[in-house]
């Protein structure tokens, strides 16, 4: 309250006479003014850290180096130790040991890709039933050696067993250093696992693995066929949704025995795949469905636009799982043999006999021609389409083509775990590179948590690669990595340049900052003046 009057007085005084100094301020007024200004400054200084804390973007500490190591494949070297047990009941212990040693030797010589080991072991002589029952342990394949007339081998279709017969005279003597039987077994093993090895080494080569861990390399043709396989197969998801659709060009048929058909022709495969994937199923029927191509005879170019995506209700958006479509189209259109397509002339010769085709990562279309007045598609009619769908389902899920079914499935599990491991690693790398590249992106604590979890599970998966446990860990790691990368709160205005900050703060803080700074300046000035005066007075007193 006193200040304005002082100022006014000063103004009046300067009006009257410029030489006359203003009346001296009371010491208490000066002190109070100082307190006022200092308290303002005190508040500002107190609030500064709060302002700083609340406006900085929170960035949790990520173990960037470790993440990048995972992405570069330095943290984990994917090794698949496949244990193969040899069952040779007819052989002496020592003979068998010798054979095993030689075979292992031959295998090691043949193997050019260190990530994929085949380790042989001798299983104790026992009955087959017993063996096949507890094959839950890590044994990938059992070789059953049976004496016979000549050397031959067959894969058991029901279990991962390779039956090899041999003439008794081919058994290596304990002293010999090479054996044709051992070489034969080794080469059989190699051909059995050739596809798996090729797929895994292809997976590693397409990911950013350092060169020293890379396999020796693939021929361009092999790489092409493998890339075709990866093109065809869907990205791994724990659950797939299968949609079976019956589209008819006219009013009939209007019903089908799809449930029974699925149960009898597809359910077994779904059950077998159940350790790796879950499946949900829905079916639909649509009458008067017009395909995307109207011509009577379809050539290969037409097939890709046959599915009328605009009008057929094909994406049900049920749940969160990706959909695999199986379409049964009842009409009179046929697939015609056309001029041999440029990429593969062999295809064209086969086209005449077929009525179905596979759309990579999407599903299958099967053309069925029925007598025009049949109102119902029977179970027997559905057999062939469903079997086609089933085999396509296997290739859409990425199951290898060769070998017996149990082997293909265990291979699928191994491929998927390698795939998931690499995918999770590369997601970690992406996250690390992004957090370096975008300095203004927020990284909440949950992301750091997710990264930690991912790496823990990756480590476990890396140790137990090849088994069911490895797949489970890789699955968790991948899910966690995805969750960390796609953290919802990591969005916002990423780009916020400094000019914008100035534009926001200056009009707001500028007018407030000026009196504050001037006030502080005044105080300092007065304080130094007073000190000088005090000093002078002190000097005068001493002199007096």
């Amino acid at each position, binding site marked *: 309250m006193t200040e304005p009057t002082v100022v006014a007085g000063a103004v009046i005084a300067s009006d009257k006479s410029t030489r006359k100094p203003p009346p001296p301020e009371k010491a208490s007024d000066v002190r109070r003014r100082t307190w006022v200004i200092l308290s303002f400054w005190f508040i500002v200084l107190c609030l500064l850290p709060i302002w700083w804390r609340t406006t900085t973007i929170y960035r949790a500490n990520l173990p960037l180096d470790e993440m990048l190591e995972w992405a570069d494949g330095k943290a984990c070297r994917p090794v698949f130790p496949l244990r193969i047990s040899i069952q040779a009941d007819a052989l002496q212990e020592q003979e068998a040991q010798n054979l095993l040693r030689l075979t292992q030797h031959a295998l090691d010589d043949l193997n050019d890709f260190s990530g994929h080991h085949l380790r042989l072991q001798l299983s104790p002589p026992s009955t087959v039933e017993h063996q096949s029952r507890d094959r839950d342990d890590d044994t990938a394949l059992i070789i059953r050696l049976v004496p016979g007339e000549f050397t031959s081998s067959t894969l058991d279709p029901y279990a991962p067993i390779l039956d090899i017969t041999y003439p008794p005279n081919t058994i290596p003597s304990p002293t010999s250093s090479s054996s044709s039987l051992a070489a034969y077994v080794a080469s059989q093993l190699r*051909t059995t696992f050739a596809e798996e090895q090729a797929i895994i080494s292809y997976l590693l080569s397409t990911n950013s693995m350092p060169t020293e861990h890379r396999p020796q390399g693939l021929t361009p043709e092999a790489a092409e066929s493998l890339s075709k396989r990866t093109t065809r197969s869907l990205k791994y998801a724990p659950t797939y949704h299968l949609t079976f659709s019956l589209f008819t060009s006219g009013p009939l048929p209007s019903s089908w025995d799809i449930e029974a058909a699925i149960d009898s022709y597809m359910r077994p495969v779904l059950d077998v795949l159940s350790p790796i994937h879950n499946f949900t199923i829905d079916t639909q029927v649509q009458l008067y469905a017009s395909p995307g191509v109207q011509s009577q005879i379809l050539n290969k170019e037409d097939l890709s636009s046959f599915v009328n995506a605009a009008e057929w209700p094909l994406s049900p958006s049920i749940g969160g799982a990706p959909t695999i479509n199986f379409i049964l189209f009842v009409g009179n259109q046929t697939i015609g043999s056309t001029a041999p397509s440029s990429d593969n002339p062999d295809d064209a010769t086969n086209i005449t006999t077929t009525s179905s085709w596979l759309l990579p990562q999407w599903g299958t279309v099967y053309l069925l021609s029925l007598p025009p007045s049949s109102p119902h598609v029977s179970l027997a009619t559905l057999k062939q389409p469903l079997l086609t769908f089933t085999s396509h389902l296997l290739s859409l899920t990425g199951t290898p083509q060769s070998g017996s079914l149990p082997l293909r499935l265990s291979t699928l599990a191994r491929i998927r775990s390698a795939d998931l491991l690499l995918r999770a690693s590369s997601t970690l790398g992406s996250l690390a590179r992004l957090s370096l590249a975008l300095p203004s992106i927020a990284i909440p*604590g949950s992301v750091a948590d997710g990264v930690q979890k991912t790496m823990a599970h990756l480590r476990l998966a890396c140790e137990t690669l090849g088994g069911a446990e490895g797949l489970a860990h890789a699955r968790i790691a991948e899910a966690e990595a995805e969750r960390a990368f796609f953290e919802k709160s990591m969005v916002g205005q990423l780009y916020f340049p400094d000019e914008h900050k100035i534009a926001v703060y200056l009009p707001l803080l500028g007018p407030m900052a000026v009196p504050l700074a001037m006030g502080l300046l005044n105080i300092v000035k007065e304080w130094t003046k007073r000190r000088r005066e005090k000093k002078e007075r002190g000097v005068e007193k001493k002199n007096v």
Partner: protein
Amino acid sequence: MRLSSLLRVPALFAAALFAAAPVAQAEHTSNWAVLVSTSRFWFNYRHLANVLSIYRTVKRLGIPDSQIILMLPDDMACNPRNAFPGTVYSNADRAVDLYGDNIEVDYRGYEVTVENFIRLLTDRVGDEMPRSKRLLTDDRSNILVYMTGHGGNEFLKFQDAEEIGAFDLADAFEQMWEKKRYHEILFMIDTCQANTMYSKLYSPNIIATGSSELDQSSYSHHADNDVGVAVIDRYTYYNLEFLETEVRDTSSKKTVGDLFDSYTYEKIHSHAGVRYDLFRGGEEEARSRLVTDFFGNVQNVEVDGSKNTTLEEDLLSLSRTIAALQQKAEEEEQAARQNTTEAVKSKPMAHHKTQFAKPLTDENWWTKKIFGATALAGCALLWGISSFLEAPGK
């Protein structure tokens, strides 16, 4: 002899291998389209018509609704000023109703925001977001991103309320590339000074094209006197003209280069720009991409060979293995059931504990409490100090 000849096969195979085979550039397996109109209000009718006509085109060329993300910030069809309620036309002849009865709008009205657009691109969405509103692409997906609205130097306005910067867009694309969420992108934008929007992009495999250079406006093509406003922009109009006359169905072999060559200043009244340098293989490779690689949905199908007769046998073997598996599973289940009976006994106790009301998220609960307490204490302290300071004055 038999054995040795068998042995030779793997040896030959190994010899045929040679180091570091180049990994062939893979084809795409799915096509997606993100079509965004960003402006509100009746007089921006043409932006909605632009985006709807592109929507019709990509749908005609086979991209299903589930793979088209359509963002419409306003509802022109139901606007009270619309003389033709329920319809949107992009031409004064009003031959084709773009709105029609088979249209799936994914983001509508105030859902069309910069944040939602970036969330869509980067897929940073909550669990509640339905699949139809997400861009579920992978490293084999080609994406067409078409945007139209009012823009300026390095920004595009959304809803007259906010804007997306060229940097934001570039960062979003980079995040998509890092996460392998696209194979190739065709980015197309029709706004004033559109070419500045793609100038900051830095992620590979993007072809970008825009309607006008810096300091150039993008003009509308013509107005419909009955509708009362301009119905389409020039750049979009001539794109559509090309797509409708030259790309009649998915078997068309017209390339993206042909499309870009059709742009002239005489037609568009501004300098349309194209950016190739981000694309792997540069201009030549980019120009050779088919129009249907982005506007259509064309995949390499695999036609089956002759019937596979081994299938039935496979299935038989399958069902047998399943019988064995199920038997084993049942055994395990029985064993597990014995264990769970003990666990069940202890469960009810735990249930009682969780029945109390709980905050939805536990995280930072204590920090929040402390913050609140500090704030209260601070207020009390201030009040105390002020009354203390007041007292001596009296």
